[in-house]
């Protein structure tokens, strides 16, 4: 019998696979989804979430967000918090594109200012922000400089002239996660990352120029406080730690595979879930190396912001400060972070693995910028290239139920392969242009992979997290220009 048949309804948007379903489960699985999204999930997602629930030290639940789909070991859209003292750390629960994430940037321009010049803007962005598999950035770093970048993240960039001091306030961890240690990084990882700061990369990474249509503002009060107004143009982009994060993950997966059983007697079902005790030497080394990936990615998005400001400044012949190019927030998708959460009334240190999931801290959570203390943390949800994207806010309920976590995007419904069989990239780009979205890409087949129909409906995904109370909707954006790798 399929697993789906064993899933119990908790409420309209929360589903559970009880601990009794399989002997080796340490905690139940909780799936956040509408009935429709649940039915559309691949059986493999449930199997993976169950396997995750067997990891040593896992607390409360193994979670799947409404955009969940199968990935390496963990589902993408999978969340697991482990006890910092007794639990494990698993690269498969973080993902290889470490701290792949989203950044949202405001402008004080309107659709009327930008629409007539969209081609000029997108063409220039495409020229200035390298995209594609092996793309290299304009930043030429020495090895020792690169080590500084991965230890200091966006802070390094701002100190070196790529951004404004205030940008750092609006990045998770203020753009620099503490404890990143470049001595835990292999030369191979450095070699792969050294010339990739300031590049988008390929796959589902993109940068969009988006429009705030008046009817798409859901929470006017919150929007106003954040600095969003009707017909405004904003910039949103999605990218990560490129080959660097990939190599860090590869290096430590190999180490973990060697010590997991032999040294720590951890038995797992699927070796894609390779892990090590968080408190062990290997676990701590990976944590410090993974943090370098987090910082590399913050730096990457910071340098891209610098380029975005240059482009807008050039096109509008105005200083970027006067164009209001301010960061709303920068969120990470693929991380594990040491956080304090309350479990059964007890405050404890936990390692929260979020893979294809966004931190969504509620109002008054520690570490939030003053601006968002009352509102809750901004959560940026990227849709597929064709559909819209959202700005949400974190909630107290997310803090209580999901370790302050929500969805990250719309999640695939079909494989890249299948999408490409169904549509030609060139046709899609022409079609999008007809609908008012100007696209520049290095790879047409890459566009086809990312076609809107290959993804879950973003509105359904966001509705599910909103109805479940994990986030609050503020505004939906629609793209008018896009560059992708």
């Amino acid at each position, binding site marked *: 019998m399929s697993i789906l048949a064993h899933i119990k309804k908790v409420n309209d948007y929360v589903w559970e696979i009880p601990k009794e379903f399989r002997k080796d489960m340490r905690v139940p699985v909780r799936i956040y989804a509408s009935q429709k999204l649940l039915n559309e999930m691949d059986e493999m997602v449930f*199997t993976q979430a169950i396997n995750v629930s067997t990891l040593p030290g896992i607390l409360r639940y193994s979670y799947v967000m409404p955009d969940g789909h199968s990935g390496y070991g963990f589902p993408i859209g999978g969340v697991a918090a482990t006890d910092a003292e007794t639990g494990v750390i698993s690269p498969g629960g973080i993902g290889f594109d470490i701290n792949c994430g989203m950044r949202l940037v405001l402008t004080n321009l309107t659709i009327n200012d930008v629409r007539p010049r969209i081609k000029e803007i997108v063409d220039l962005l495409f020229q200035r922000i390298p995209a*594609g598999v092996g793309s290299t950035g304009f930043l030429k770093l020495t090895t020792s400089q690169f080590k500084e970048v991965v230890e200091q993240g966006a802070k390094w960039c701002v100190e070196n002239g790529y951004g404004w001091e205030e940008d750092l306030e609006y990045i998770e961890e203020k753009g620099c996660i503490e404890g990143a240690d470049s001595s835990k990084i292999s030369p191979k990882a450095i070699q792969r990352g050294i*010339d990739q700061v300031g590049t988008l990369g390929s796959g589902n990474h993109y940068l969009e120029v988006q429009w705030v249509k008046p009817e798409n503002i859901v929470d006017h009060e919150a929007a106003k406080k954040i600095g969003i107004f009707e017909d405004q143009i904003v910039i949103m982009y999605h990218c990560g730690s490129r080959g660097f994060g990939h190599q860090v993950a590869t290096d430590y997966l190999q180490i973990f595979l060697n010590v997991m059983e032999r040294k720590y007697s951890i038995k797992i079902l699927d070796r894609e879930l390779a892990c090590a005790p968080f408190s062990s030497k290997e676990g701590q080394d990976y944590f410090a190396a993974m943090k370098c990936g987090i910082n590399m990615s913050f730096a990457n998005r910071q340098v891209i912001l610098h380029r975005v400001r240059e482009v807008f400044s050039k096109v509008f012949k105005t200083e970027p400060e006067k164009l209001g190019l301010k960061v709303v927030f920068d969120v990470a998708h693929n991380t594990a972070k040491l956080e304090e959460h309350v479990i059964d009334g007890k405050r404890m240190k936990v390692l929260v693995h979020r893979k294809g999931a966004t931190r969504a801290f509620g109002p008054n959570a520690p570490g939030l910028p003053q601006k968002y203390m009352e509102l809750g943390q901004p959560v940026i949800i990227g849709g597929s290239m064709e559909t819209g994207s959202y700005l949400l806010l974190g909630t107290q309920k997310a803090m209580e139920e999901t370790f302050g976590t929500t969805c990250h995007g719309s999640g695939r419904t079909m494989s890249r392969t299948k999408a490409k069989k169904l549509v030609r990239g060139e046709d899609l780009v022409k079609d999008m242009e007809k609908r008012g979205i100007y696209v520049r890409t290095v790879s047409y087949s890459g566009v086809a992979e990312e076609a809107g129909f290959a993804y879950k409906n973003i509105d359904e995904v966001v509705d599910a997290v909103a109805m479940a109370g994990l986030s609050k909707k503020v505004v939906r954006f629609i793209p008018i220009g896009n560059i992708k790798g």
Partner: protein
Amino acid sequence: MKIPVIVISGFLGAGKTTFLRRLISSVKKKLAIIMNEFGEVAIDAEVIKGKAVNMIELTGGCVCCSLTGELEYAINEIIEKVKPEYILIETTGIAEPDSLIYNLENIPSVVLDNVITIVDCDGIARFPEIGYTQRVQIESADFILLNKIDLVNEEQLKEVENKVRSINERALIFKTKFCNGNLDYNLFFGYFIDKESVKLNPSEHTEEFESLYFDFEGKVNREEFEKFISNLPRDIYRAKGNVIFKDGKYIFNYVAGRLSYDEFDYNKNRFLFVGKNIKKFENNLKNSIKKILQNE
């Protein structure tokens, strides 16, 4: 002329690099190998920096390339600079190869020949479940090397084979140790029919492999041809050659249940079959070929 590409996939530590080393040393072809970063295949050599790719020359005319640019640019740069007979792409062990495979199909200068996935038997035997990424790697394969058979017992090997087979029914499976199982590596390079492969003499081969060659005039009925190919005995691993249909002349490549064509001007039909003890099919094949000829 399109350059054929072989994709080599497999889990971390399955033996992809070992396999590549063996290929390079046993196949007399000009190869260009694309990897994410120079692996252990290429050390102590001078790096030639290009626009989309860095290269290292290996012995025997092969080059080893690491991507620094978009795949399509890199491939075109390699073709322009070194004119390889074959391009091999080694994928990373932690990624699903399906995306790469279909990207290749959209690059006009190349044609996908086959996908080889190396499976680490010991790794599969030790863990009860095959993960998602590895599943996709196995699913995508035309050839599967069950490697490290020396690390498992017979019963485990059988179990691993069954598991792999349940994920991919069509691929040809070889059992190897250190990626070596009396393999004839030429089998993987089947895209072009060339003098060397036509002359294949079973005695020069590892004993398991035999080849059969037929050539004939006339036009072939496409529908009948496809039926014929899809009904080939399982022991025939590959079929390749030239075929003339009513609508044009093609080179065809059949590997592990997957048939592909590319336009190619040659004024004769030539079919080459390679497989395990297949001499016995000679008469059957001869008769079948008569049937697929188009009646004018």
